[in-house]
C-alpha cells in the first residue's frame, strides 16, 4: 500500500510492531487483568488459562492449516461436540474411557473423511460442505443426549489425567505443546508444509508440479477433525459431562484466534505459532473477564470490539499481505 517507508528506523519499528504486536498485546492484556484482579496470577488461574489455551489450540490447529490453504473448515465444532457426547455416553453406560476415546476419535475421523472427499475429490466449496457436516454432526451430538447434557458422577482416570499438573503446567498442555512443536516443524521445515502455503497462492500450479493435492486436502481435513475431537474428549473429562451446546463459543473463539494469529509471525498467513498466541489472547480474555465479573454479553461486546480494532490496526500498520488474509 505505502510506496516507501519514510525512514529506515520507522520501517524497522513498524516491522517489530507487526511481528511482535500480538505478543505484546497478549502481555499487556495479562498485566492489565493481573493489575485489576491479583487473583489472575494465582496458580489455579494460570492452570485454567493454560488448559483453555491447550483445548482451543487443539480445536484450531488443523483449521489453521486449512485456512492457510485458502479453504475453510467450520465443522470442527461439530467434530468436538460429537466426540464429546459420544465419549460421555459410552462412559456413562459403562463401556469405559478406552472405548469412549476410541469411538470419539473414529467419529472425528469419519467427519474429516466426509469433508475431505467432498471437498478434495468431489470439488465442492469447503464452506458449504463444512456448514453442512458441521450442522449434521452438531445435531447428532445433541441427538446422543436427546437434547440434554450427559452428566457423569466422576470422570475416572481421564479426569485425573486432565487435572494433573506439573507445577502450574497441566499435563495436557505439555502434550499439546509437543504436538504444536511437531506441527510448527513440519509447517516450516518439511516439504509438505510448503505445499499448504503454495496451494493458497496457486492451486493449479501445485497440481501441475505433481503434488497430490486432493490427498493432501483429505489428510488436512481428517487431521483437523480428529484434533477437534481430541479437544472434545478432553472437555468431557475436564467438565465430567457431555454437553454439545458448550462447543458453540469455540467457533467464534477459534476463528478469532486463527485470524488474529495470522497477523502475527507469518504475516497474513495462518500459522501454528500465531494460532497459539491468538488462543492465548482469547484464553486470557475469557479468564480475566470471568474474574472481573463481566457477563457473557459484555464479553461478547468486548471481544467483538477488540477483534475489529485489532484487525483494523494490523491492516493499517501491517504489510500489504495482511490485508488479503485468506480470500476464502
Amino acid at each position: 500500500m505505502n510506496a516507501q517507508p519514510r525512514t529506515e528506523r520507522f520501517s524497522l519499528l513498524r516491522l517489530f510492531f507487526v511481528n511482535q504486536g500480538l505478543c505484546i498485546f497478549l502481555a499487556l492484556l495479562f498485566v492489565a487483568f493481573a493489575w485489576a484482579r491479583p487473583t489472575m496470577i494465582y496458580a489455579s488461574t494460570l492452570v485454567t488459562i493454560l488448559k483453555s489455551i491447550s483445548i482451543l489450540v487443539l480445536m484450531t490447529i488443523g483449521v489453521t492449516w486449512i485456512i492457510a490453504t485458502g479453504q475453510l473448515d467450520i465443522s470442527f465444532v461439530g467434530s468436538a461436540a460429537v466426540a464429546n457426547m459420544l465419549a460421555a455416553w459410552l462412559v456413562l453406560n459403562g463401556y469405559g474411557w478406552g472405548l469412549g476415546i476410541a469411538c470419539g476419535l473414529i467419529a472425528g475421523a469419519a467427519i474429516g473423511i466426509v469433508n475431505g472427499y467432498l471437498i478434495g475429490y468431489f470439488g465442492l466449496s469447503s464452506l458449504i460442505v463444512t456448514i453442512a457436516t458441521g450442522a449434521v454432526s452438531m445435531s447428532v451430538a445433541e441427538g446422543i443426549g436427546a437434547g440434554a447434557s450427559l452428566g457423569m458422577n466422576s470422570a475416572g482416570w481421564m479426569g485425573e489425567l486432565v487435572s494433573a499438573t506439573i507445577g502450574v503446567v497441566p499435563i495436557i498442555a505439555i502434550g499439546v505443546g509437543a504436538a504444536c512443536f511437531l506441527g510448527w516443524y513440519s509447517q516450516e521445515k518439511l516439504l509438505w508444509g510448503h505445499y499448504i502455503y503454495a496451494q493458497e497462492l496457486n492451486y493449479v500450479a501445485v497440481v501441475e508440479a505433481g503434488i497430490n493435492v486432493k490427498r493432501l486436502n483429505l489428510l488436512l481435513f481428517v487431521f483437523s477433525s480428529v484434533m477437534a475431537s481430541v479437544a472434545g474428549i478432553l472437555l468431557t473429562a475436564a467438565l465430567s459431562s457431555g454437553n454439545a451446546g458448550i462447543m458453540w463459543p469455540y467457533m467464534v473463539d477459534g476463528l478469532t484466534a486463527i485470524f488474529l494469529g495470522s497477523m502475527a509471525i507469518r504475516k497474513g498467513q495462518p500459522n501454528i505459532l500465531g494460532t497459539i498466541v491468538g488462543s492465548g489472547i482469547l484464553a486470557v480474555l475469557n479468564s480475566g473477564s470471568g474474574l472481573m465479573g463481566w457477563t457473557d454479553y459484555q464479553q461478547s461486546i468486548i471481544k467483538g470490539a477488540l477483534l475489529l480494532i485489532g484487525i483494523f490496526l494490523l491492516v493499517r500498520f501491517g504489510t500489504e499481505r495482511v490485508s488479503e488474509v485468506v480470500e476464502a
Partner: protein
Amino acid sequence: MPGLKRVSPLFIRTVAYLMVLCLIAGVFTWFAPQFMTAGNLATILRHLAADGFAALGLTFVIVVARYEVSFPGVVCFVAMAMGFLISGGLSLPLAFIGGVLICAGVGAINGIAVSYLKLNDMVSTIAVGSLAGGGAFLFNGGQSFFKNFVSCGLLRLNDAKFAGINISVYLLIGVYFVAWLILHRSRFGRVFYATGENPTSATYSGINVRAVTFWAYLICSVLMALVALMLMAETGMANVHIGSGCMMAAYTGVFLGAALFGGAGVPATFAGTLLIAVILNGFNLLSVPYYWSDAVLGVVLVLGIVAFHKDGVNRLKNVFKAKKKAQDRAVEISDSDNNLRLERVK
C-alpha cells in the same frame, strides 16, 4: 452442438426441482396425511417469511463472493431495538423505520470494513456480529419485550390473511420481486455479478468494486430488519436470541438454491428456501425432535449440491475411485467458477 435446438438447461433444472418438491411432498403426505391440508400449506408459507428474508439478504453478499456471518446478531439487536421502540409507545411503522436505520448503520460498518478498509470479511463480520449480539442485551438487560406488541398491530403481520393467504407471504413475494428486478433486471444488479465473478475484470470494466461490495452488505443488513419484524410477529415478543436460528437456514437456502439452479440468484434462493421450509415442516409433522432439524438441512444441502452438480456423475466416480484415480495420468481440476481441465504428463 451448433444448429441443434436444445432444451434450455434452466428448464431442465426447473422441472427437476419441481419433481423433487413434489416427490418430497408426496412422501410427507404418505406418512403424515395432514401435510397436504390448506392449513398446513399456509403454515409453511408463513414460516417461510423470516428465513426467506434472511436468505435474500445473504444472496446479495454471496453474489459479490463475500461472506457475512453477522446477520444473526444483527437480527437479535434490531429486534430488541424495535421492541424497545414499540414498548416505548412508538407506532409500528416508525419503529420499523428506526429498525431499518439501525440495520443500515450496521450494514454500512460491515461494508466499509470489508470494501474500503479491506479487512477480511469473515473476521470483521464475526466481530460485528459479536458486537451486535452482545449489544442486544443492553436494551432491557437481557429481558424480552412484549408490551404494546398486540395493540400496535405487529401480530397482524403474522395472523391477518388476504384471500386465504397470510399477508406476510405477499410481503415476501413483493420484496423478492423487487430484489429480482434489482439484481437480475437492472444495470445496478448485474454489476454485483460482475464483481463476484472477477473483481479485477470488473474494475477494468469501469465498475466501482468497492462501492458494489459496500451496497451488498448494506442491502443484506437492511433486509435483516424485515427478518426481525417477521420473527417478532411470529413469536409475539422480542428476545435476545430471536435471530440465532436464521444462520443455518439462510446459508442452506442460498447454497441449495445456487446448487439447484446453477448459481446464486433471487429465484434460486426462493426455490432453496421453499424446499427447506417444506422439508422442515414435514419433519415437524412427523414429530422429529427439534435438534435433528439442522442435520436434515445439512444432509439436504450436500445431497442437493451433489445431485444437481453439472459434472456430478464424473466427480462421484472420482470420489469412489480415488485410489485408482491417483495413479491415472489425467488429473481433472475444477475451479468453482470455470471448469478448467489440464492434462498432467506423468
